């Protein structure tokens, strides 16, 4: 079978992929296709029936499905080709894609490939929680799929491990559906999710949040019967004598998200161990020319609005790449100190203004965030408090950049 040719293939029809597609079309790139493995476009937003989406991108608060629909409508309006029920099996470094659907195999050669594949949840296995292996243990997202898309309750008496945003949202959902959420336990001494979610999903419903706690045993041969929770010290070691048993039939895990990059590996895209996503330059181009990545596939975002905005920036750069066949070399590396969890992009050209996105590795109070080049400060931004749950943006004007040496991103304490 001969491959079809496209200017751009977008892998994943969620808030990143849809935004990228629309922006590409608006930039005059017409020969594009979105490949989506689900039966509908929209990605994970379809199951996020709570509101709070869209304030930044659309200036109003929307539910997940409403937010997705804005972009789906634009995709339809712009007559952008898409295929649902279509799973990409492989991408080669030469940008040859093989996808499969009930209609058969689809082979595409594309000038640009845009990876907006989202992320997946960390599981019990990856965090290695000891104990028995009963039914009743779900990741927050899986429980959300059952409840919001299939109308199924996974349990009645719930304990949540991890205070990631989906876990917090699910604490509220379970409560509203008549389940009893006993508590949320978080290993870190600070919450994993946004402050507004702690307030609106836990405090408003009197659900206790225990920081510096973890689950040390799981009881139940067939269905979950109880968990043992314990307090941990600063080194995350269990404090003796702090264990207690909590009866429950359900354990929800909200212990982190991992950018989905199984296809990237096959395309020889190098991944940054700090983000779990690709190394990208200011154009969101990965180490493989013509392959771009944005959204949660690149790094896990706090708000969906930033996923779409990032994908739109990607699309602007990708449109240039498609037209010119080349983008400026990005030889200036960005390096971070140990306070910074990660930064996007990891390299820039120095020839245009860029917005850097980063997260701190732990909560920080009172200091300044500095960009330094050749031992000189390029800019310094004071802060009162920074938390890992929130993404931080820094705008760097091209005039400030002095050379092609690497730029250090550091935290200076007052």
């Amino acid at each position: 079978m001969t491959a079809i040719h496209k200017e751009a293939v977008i892998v994943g029809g969620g808030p990143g992929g849809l935004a990228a597609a629309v922006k590409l079309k608006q930039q005059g790139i017409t020969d594009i296709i979105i490949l989506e493995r689900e039966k509908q476009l929209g990605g994970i937003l379809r199951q996020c029936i709570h509101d709070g989406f869209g304030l930044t991108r659309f200036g109003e608060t929307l539910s997940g499905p409403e937010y997705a629909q804005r972009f789906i409508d634009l995709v339809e309006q712009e007559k952008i080709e898409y295929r649902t029920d279509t799973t990409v099996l492989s991408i080669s470094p030469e940008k040859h894609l093989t996808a499969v659907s009930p209609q058969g195999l689809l082979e595409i050669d594309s000038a640009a490939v845009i990876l907006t594949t989202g992320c997946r949840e960390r599981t019990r296995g990856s965090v290695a929680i000891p104990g028995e292996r009963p039914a009743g243990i779900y990741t927050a997202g899986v429980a959300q799929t059952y409840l919001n898309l299939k109308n199924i309750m996974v349990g009645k008496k719930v304990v949540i491990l991890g205070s990631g945003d989906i876990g917090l949202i699910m604490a509220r959902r379970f409560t509203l559906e008549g389940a009893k959420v006993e508590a949320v336990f978080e290993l870190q001494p600070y919450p994993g999710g946004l402050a507004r979610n702690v307030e609106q999903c836990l405090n408003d419903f009197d659900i206790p949040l225990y920081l510096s706690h973890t689950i040390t045993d799981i009881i139940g041969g067939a269905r979950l019967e109880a968990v043992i929770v314990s307090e941990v010290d600063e080194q995350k070691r269990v404090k003796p004598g702090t264990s207690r048993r909590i009866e429950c039939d359900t354990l929800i895990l909200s212990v982190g998200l991992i950018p989905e990059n199984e296809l990237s590996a096959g395309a020889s895209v190098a991944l940054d161990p700090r983000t779990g996503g690709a190394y990208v330059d200011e154009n969101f181009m990965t180490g493989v020319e013509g392959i771009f990545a944005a959204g949660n596939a690149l790094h896990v975002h706090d708000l969906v609005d930033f996923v779409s905005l990032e994908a739109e920036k990607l699309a602007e750069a990708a449109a240039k790449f498609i037209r010119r066949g080349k983008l400026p070399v990005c030889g200036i590396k960005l390096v971070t100190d140990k306070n910074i969890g990660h930064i996007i992009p990891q390299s820039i050209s120095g020839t245009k203004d860029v917005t850097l996105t980063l997260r701190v590795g732990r909560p920080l109070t009172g200091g300044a965030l500095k960009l330094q080049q050749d031992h000189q400060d390029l800019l310094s931004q004071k802060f009162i408090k920074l938390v890992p749950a929130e993404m931080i943006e820094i705008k760097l004007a091209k005039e400030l950049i002095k050379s092609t040496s690497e730029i250090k991103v550091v935290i200076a304490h007052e």
Partner: protein
Amino acid sequence: MEHQYDCIVIGAGVVGNAVARQLSACSVTIAVLEKEQDLCFGTSGRNSGVLHAGFNNKTGSKMARFCVEGNLEFDRIAEELDVPFKRTGKLIVGFSDDDKNSLRAMKAQGDANGVPGLEIVGKERIRELAPFIAGEFAMYSPMTGILNPFIYTVALAENAHKNGAAYFFACPVTDIFYQDGRYRITAGGRNFASRWIINCAGLESDKISALLGIKGHKLYPCRGEYFILDKKAGQYLGIPAYPVPNPREGGLGIHLTPTIDGNILIGPSSKYIEENDNYSVTQDIMDLLIKDGGRIFPYLKREYFIRNFAGIRPKLVGPQEGGFADFVIERRSEAPYAINLVGIESPGLTSALPIAREVVRLIREVEPLKPNPGFDPVRKGPPAFAGLTNGQRRALIQQNPDYGEIICRCENITKAEVLEAINRPLGAATVTGVKYRCRPMMGRCQGGYCQTRITELLRQEKKLAVKEVLYQRKGSNMFTGVALK
């Protein structure tokens, strides 16, 4: 109503199914009674998946004899039953002089048992065979292999079933008595009668022995825990790598085994426990696995861990004695029409078919068994999309569009494969049953993508209410009900 058979096999693990298949080659009626909801829910589904060569076992023992026999014939068996299998060879690596002596003794034992090709090799050869494995020297066993233990167990059952064996699930045997030349068996609320009983109950085989009136067998459950590593780690290991075992332990030492699907297993540990159905994994052992595994596999990284699990060995020796007791395969005067199999632990997977032939031989000592003229030893498994060429995939999707719908994105398993797993004869009735047959949920996302799809297909195909979907055992209901309107 009483179900009448010539032979009743208790237990649908690898041994029970091998026995049922072997019996199905004879002109007898057969039923297999299984206490769980499905095949393979005990020790057969919870092990390293290694086809052992037979050098670990005492010369002259049944373990040694059946293991060597089972190993040598397995290429043919794998082909007959369409079981994924690879003769990888295996290394037992050593570091000290004591290790070297142990390896020499092990080689001598293996030679005496008739294991072909064993050799002691140096560092260079280790590097050739397994470049990422540490060790000063090793014994290399070319005959050792890896197989898919789930598929092997299922394949034996499917073939037995095709040749006439009936299967009854959720039928724990609670009573047996002998009357008028027949055993009367109560199991799962049903009544059965049979001229012969074959006890293949694994971890419950001591209890079944007692029900048969055979005294003196006591099992000591001995748990082994494992880590499963991501396929990303699979590139580092093409061949099982074991340490020199500690003879007191009654295990083979914490080893690294590539699985036939490309993951790596680290384990098993060895710890005697009280209950024979507690499959807990424990913090202490996890730490130990990382430490011991890291000794022979220095490339071990935390990010590779995708799951842990535990299996339980039905051991006839307790913690005081240690080591291995031989398989018990017996016909006793207390129960002259029962073949009693107790303590079938490692190498039970490798020995299953030779054990089954031994069972038939023991029955033939009492009565002649005529061959079943219709016996067909061949079982064909369904195609696995992930392993096909694009040309084959295209053809398959054209025949059946469900082969074009990916259900498990980590392992590229299609809707057609899941439906086949559910709807084949002796098909899966639980989520774990689907997983064992075609591997969804075994990848790195552990069901994050596919679990909701699998439960939906199970409900649809088996006409299950929401509350009836089981994860694995009885009582392991996945859901408590539907959401509020």
